[in-house]
């Protein structure tokens, strides 16, 4: 087992464990902190896949900016056990059933995944995730979607102004 594989299994275990802890933590602030751990683990995966730029952006934007916003909101809302909405037992049951259906579907598909066994993520070229190559792809093959995204942002901004105005 090489170093990369050991790192891969370690990061995967960390990501899954932290993700489960996000759900299980009683305190919402702890949930957010575990979520940051998930993002770090995923950024580690990105580095393993030679996507260095993506890893850094993921850390700065998600683990940095968005999680701080999350923490602020949760602390401002002053959540505690009394304000928790009571869930009906049937609701919980329905959730378990539908979640179980999805799990069953995914497992039944993974069981047929014989052809995926030998495939590995592309790791041979070290410079594929550098910002230079990313920019090249963005402004050549993906230039149309890139430009059209600006319409999306523009409409979101107009929306924010419309909602924010008196």
């Amino acid at each position: 087992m090489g170093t990369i594989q050991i790192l891969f299994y370690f990061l995967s275990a960390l990501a899954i464990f932290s993700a489960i802890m996000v759900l299980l933590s009683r305190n919402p602030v702890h949930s957010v902190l575990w979520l940051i751990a998930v993002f770090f683990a995923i950024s580690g995966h990105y580095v393993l896949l030679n996507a260095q730029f993506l890893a850094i952006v993921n850390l700065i934007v998600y683990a940095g900016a968005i999680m701080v916003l999350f923490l602020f909101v949760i602390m401002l809302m002053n959540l505690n056990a009394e304000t928790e909405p009571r869930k009906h037992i049937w609701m919980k049951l329905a959730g378990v059933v539908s979640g179980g259906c999805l799990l069953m579907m995914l497992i039944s598909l993974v069981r047929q995944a014989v052809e995926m066994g030998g495939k590995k993520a592309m790791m041979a070229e070290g410079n594929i995730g550098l910002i230079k190559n990313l920019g090249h792809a963005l402004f050549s093959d993906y230039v149309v979607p890139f430009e059209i995204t600006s319409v999306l942002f523009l409409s979101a901004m107009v929306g924010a102004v419309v909602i924010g105005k008196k």
Partner: protein
Amino acid sequence: MNAIIVSALLGVVMMFTGIISQKKSVHTAVASVGLLLLLLANLLNHYGLFVIHVDTRGMFNFEQFGMYFNSIAIFATLVYVLLSGKTIEHTGVSTADFYALIFFVLCGVSILSGFNGLLMLFLGIEIMTIPLYILTGADKRNLKSNEASLKYFLMGSFSTGIMLMGITLIYGATGTFTMGESNVIGSGGLIPKTSFLEIAGAILIFVSMCFKVSAAPFHFWTPDVYDGAPGVFTSFMATIVKAAGFIAFVRLYENNTAMLGPTWRILLSFVIISTLLIGNITAVFQQSVKRMLAYSSIAQAGFMLFALYSANDLAKEGILLYSVAYSLATIGIFAILIKMKDYTFDGFNGLAKSQPLLAFAMAVCLLSLAGIPLTAGFFAKYYMLASVVKTGGSLWLVVIAVLFAAVSAYYYFRVIQAMYFKDGEAELMELTPAFKTGMLALAVLIILVGIFPTIVLNFFYF
């Protein structure tokens, strides 16, 4: 491509109009002229005239089907703005911004009718829905509108997340954003040997698309959002946006059903039947006409899903005709509904006595939705069912659909009954003669399409 560029630019133009002029009637006028320009630009695209030439690198696949739907959507929006423009002016303070958002929605619609690959599908869906979240909450002082907007936003983002998961799985399996690229590796057996990630992705995208077009069992957001949103914007959401969702749905799964195998038909018929069942049965019990229309739009979605089921040329013609018939009729009904003071069935009592012309136009729209012959809705439903018959072997589905169409007649006729056969004072806001003429023109158009459906379909081949 013309429609995408011009509609995005017109959105910006609308924002500037809001700065230059404070008069709201000017905003409506500019929006109407803009829609005409957009329609012209799209028609020019049919004949190969472009605003600017763009090398899309295979991101788009503009074909006649999508381009023609674009024209239909823009035309329906024009009808909508001409009929309900006055109400948009009264809805909130920022009329020009609402029009700008409507143009951005149209930009999303044009992307959805021309996308090639899942990346553009995702962008198109997002550009189409994000302005809608805002429009749903346009009536800021109304708590119901706020609730509807937040609900729509949360549920919509969640379903977008599911779609992104599906796209990621497909990209992971094939390395491209095109669905069905790896094709069927070996045939035989119930499930073809396609990559499992691709099948999982296709199912997740299916779930998300079902949510976007409000097909059961993913319809739960629809009644609350359609009921809570300001009536004018419900009208826009329930017609043009929904039809665009179906066009994207049909185009997405057009050539990829082989990948999912025979299970695809089983899955789809389950969705169709539950959509028809829930939409129609629940609509029967509603007291508010607006909420009834929300459920009826779910029921109509069940019919439109037949285009996906049969996936042949007849279905393509059918979905175009259906989007014309359904959009025009629903826009007409909502245009009158938002002028009413009382949204319940009783609010319509005696409308025929005080406003015979409006009652007639409303009756034509309702008959069209119910699918009565001589209205556009009849041929729309006929084409849908004929396409299923043509695929063969699914006659039971047709029988069920016809039964539910009969159920739907009950709640549409309740409104007609209230208008014509009950006494009462239906209260309306003030009406302009132009509005009445517009409604009459709409009713005539619906009847015209109902008698000669070929006038819609002939354009398809030019």
